[in-house]
């Protein structure tokens, strides 16, 4: 019997989540919730979703035993859930396929998305091309400059990229702008949110689409290792890859769940994005959750070497899992993430995304403290090809 059944019907995870939006968005969210609840239980929808995940995304993604790196670290065995092998190179596509299929069934002809590093933008542009829909991606003008390759990728896929000049000109401003577009064009437009944040039903829906990661892992662990892992480790920005892995394990109390946030230049420097580790509850982007904010409740600019973790909020389900003690949240610095990035390149021949490198960095800290028979399952949420410029710059190399 299922014990964990959050969110409740109003989208609450304990005190978190909910629908904190202007009246102008309520009708659109009500429509989305009704349609999602309908298709969630629709066999045809689920069959098409499964088919697309297999033949378009390339699932299931394997679990790979990082033997050389584990031996080098001298403790627990590190296993990698290879979301980096998905089409477009990250877990983001699981969610965009699901939402695009829903959009199509809702009769929407235009999809919009917000993006920080550009990964969710690329994943949205990809599915828009695949299903023949117009795609507009909002991206902070600072990010447009920093992520020129991904901007070009989206354009190749037929999307229009709109640079956002307001606020700090980064992800949260892109999100604000996408919400405004949605309010204005709701009749023909579907808003694909890229993470488990935003108003109900997004945190629930995105989790459900990403939960394929954890469901596969349960089967694969049983088949290949005869048991479930001792701990799950995943990076947390908004938290979609982490919740995708964690969710099917929530009732499995023997499995530790560890979310790794970005400590940037250090959690005492004000240049980090460690929301759950350092933040306070508040309301932003349609839900109540932990936020990085000042004493007046203004949202503070965050920093991480990894653009995908550079967000001042976090999914409300993570806020709840933290408060009730089911999951642990820690933070690692830019430097620690970079060091894990290089280790995986050299020991395993895998170039990880900087986001995923945060999870790897914590695994590298934890593994030596545990016995060799312990199994750590790390979500390798994306590949690092997109991060070449950033990493090269850290070594003083300019292309």
């Amino acid at each position, binding site marked *: 019997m299922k014990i964990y059944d959050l969110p409740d019907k109003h989208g609450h995870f304990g005190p978190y989540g909910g629908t904190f939006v202007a009246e102008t968005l309520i009708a659109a969210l009500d429509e989305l919730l009704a349609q999602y609840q309908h298709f969630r239980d629709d066999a045809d929808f689920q069959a098409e979703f499964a088919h697309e995940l297999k033949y378009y995304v390339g699932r299931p993604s394997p679990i790979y035993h990082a033997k050389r790196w584990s031996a080098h670290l001298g403790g627990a065995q590190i296993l990698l859930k290879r979301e980096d092998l998905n089409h477009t190179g990250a877990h983001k596509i699981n969610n965009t396929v699901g939402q695009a299929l829903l959009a199509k069934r809702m009769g929407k002809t235009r999809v919009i998305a917000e993006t920080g590093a550009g990964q969710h933008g690329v994943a949205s542009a990809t599915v828009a091309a695949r299903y023949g829909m117009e795609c507009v991606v909002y991206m902070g003008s600072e990010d447009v400059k920093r992520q020129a390759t991904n901007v070009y990728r989206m354009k190749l896929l037929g999307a229009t990229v709109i640079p956002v000049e307001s606020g700090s000109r980064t992800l949260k401003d892109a999100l*604000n702008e996408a919400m405004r577009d949605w309010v204005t064009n709701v009749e023909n437009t579907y808003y694909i949110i890229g993470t488990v944040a935003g108003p109900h039903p997004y945190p629930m829906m995105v989790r459900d689409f990403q939960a394929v990661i954890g469901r596969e892992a349960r089967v694969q662990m049983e088949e290949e290792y005869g048991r479930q892992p001792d701990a799950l480790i995943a990076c947390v920005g908004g938290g979609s890859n982490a919740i995708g892995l964690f969710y099917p394990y929530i009732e499995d109390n023997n499995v530790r769940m560890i979310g790794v946030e970005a400590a940037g230049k250090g959690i005492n420097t004000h240049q980090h994005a460690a929301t759950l580790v350092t933040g306070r509850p508040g309301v932003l982007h349609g839900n109540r959750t932990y936020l990085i904010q000042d004493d007046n*409740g203004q949202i503070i600019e965050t920093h991480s070497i990894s653009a995908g973790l550079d967000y001042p909020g976090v999914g409300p389900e993570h806020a709840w899992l933290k408060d009730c003690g089911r999951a642990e949240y820690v933070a690692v610095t830019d430097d620690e993430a970079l060091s894990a990035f290089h280790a995986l390149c050299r020991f395993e021949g895998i170039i990880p995304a900087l986001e995923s490198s945060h999870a790897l960095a914590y695994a590298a800290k934890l593994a030596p403290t545990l016995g060799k028979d312990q199994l750590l399952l790390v979500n390798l949420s994306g590949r690092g090809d997109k991060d070449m410029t950033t990493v090269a710059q850290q070594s003083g190399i300019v292309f």
Partner: protein
Amino acid sequence: MNRITSTFSVLKAQNKKALIPFITAGDPEPEMTVTLMHLLVQAGADIIELGVPFSDPMADGPTIQRSSERALHHHTGLKDVLTMVTEFRKTNTVTPVVLMGYANPIEARGYGNFAMAAKEAGVDGVLIVDYPPEECEEWVQQLEDQKIDPIFLLSPTTPKRRMEKVAKLAKGYVYYVSLKGVTGASHLDLVDVRNKLAEVRSLISIPIGVGFGIRDSVAARAVAELADAVVVGSRIIEEIENSTRSALLDNVNNLVKSLRTALDEINGTITSDSEC
């Protein structure tokens, strides 16, 4: 009777419509806000909506977002906004002041703590854009304990059963968003407004203000024919933004006076100012 209710009943007796200008506290700089509030009243405002600056104003267009950014540049926080209201009340005890803003500054302060401080400062109503009726039971209770009116938004997409919900919670007036979009947009559809307001009136007995997309005297007059109050925000902010500091007060004064004149014309009650 509180200030908002008495203002509407006086206007009704005079067969006049309420003019509600919106400015952001701290824009263009904190020292000017109280002066601007008094000026709005002299130019014909019946109620003042005072924006509490927020870093992420999702429901606003670029104009009001920029005003928030200017105010935040001067570190104008919720506490400063309440200080401004206190200052305003030293010489004006009549004109209602409604705070308008977003949830997080309130969350940071705490509902009860905020409501008490707001009452003490002389605030009459509060509209928090991202507290819809579903999420605000405790919030409304705290406001009511302090006899502050909770103001709610209605939109063209609000269905009947939600209006009934709002009817139970809302006090003072309701704010009907006249178009699908954000503040400052320009595609106001009067036929839509007319049809929807008829439905709103059948369910909600308190006065109805209409805002979003009212950019000139013509639109203000047209909306005043249908509503009890006309809310003008982005257009006034633009005037603040585009004026030199020496001309700012005159320009805002002229704009608000022209709106006042437009509102009064619909009843043939032309004020003496209108000839200027």
